[in-house]
């Protein structure tokens, strides 16, 4: 059933047009990179601050700017990623690297939600579990980026 759904997604006219396009595909691809850049580019400094770096800088304003930038980047990466996936859906679901990337996104997303809740409930000092969560966040998102890139190479 899933296989049939993937085949029909690949055969859907707008997706066929994207797959065969000269310009649209690289533009969607570039937008995906932009989404990843915004996500990783904001989450790394935010996590480093949470992990204990730059203690003289207040967390609250940093959090307000960077968590929203990361969220926007994630949404952009997700939407463009769905489009790129759709062009070769049946092939991507057979890629271990791609499935690993999806799994890592779920873990990284749950970790982000946990860190953000834990932080919201304890204003002031950063509890050690949150610091570890922040370090894990960097490793997880960089892992997502790395696996995403490797999908194109293997």
């Amino acid at each position, binding site marked *: 059933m899933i296989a049939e759904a993937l085949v029909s997604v690949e055969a859907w006219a707008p997706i066929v047009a994207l797959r065969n396009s000269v310009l649209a595909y690289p533009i969607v691809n570039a937008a995906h990179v932009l989404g990843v850049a915004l996500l990783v580019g904001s989450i790394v400094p935010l996590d480093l601050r949470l992990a204990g770096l730059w203690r003289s800088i207040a967390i609250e304003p940093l959090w307000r700017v960077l968590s929203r930038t990361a969220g926007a980047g994630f949404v952009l990466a997700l939407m463009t990623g769905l489009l790129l996936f759709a062009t070769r859906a049946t092939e991507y679901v057979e890629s271990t690297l791609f499935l690993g990337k999806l799994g890592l996104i779920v873990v990284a997303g749950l970790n982000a939600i946990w860190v953000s809740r834990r932080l919201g409930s304890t204003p002031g000092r950063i509890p050690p579990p949150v610091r570890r969560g922040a370090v894990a966040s960097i490793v997880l998102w960089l892992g997502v980026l790395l696996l995403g890139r490797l999908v194109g*190479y293997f």
Partner: protein
Amino acid sequence: MSPRNPAHMRLIVALLLCIGLVPLASGHHGWGWASDEITELTGEIVDVRLGNPHGEVDIDVGGETWTVEVGQPWRNERSGLTAELLEFGNEIKALGHVSNREGEQLLKAVRVTTREGHHDLYPDRVPDSD
């Protein structure tokens, strides 16, 4: 950043580990994964998947299926390699570099020859002698 702080050390180690994995990306894109030698394959088309990020044409070469990697749409278009020429059952000749990976029957084409003649996907990489 104080390297004496154990949390910082863990972070640095984790980042270095990530960077250390990068050389694994030895390439499906590009040419790093393929042999330097030029190989020629001739066969009948058994499956075609054209489009981005690059097209793939499966051909039957003496009973073995080989995947010929062709270009993305603009590259195929530039060489005159159209979907009509790559239909199921057509015979094509592919000149290019085979994959170095064990068990992988994959050739990245620099030139594909159809009933309409040569289609040079990578003109700079086609050997001089015709």
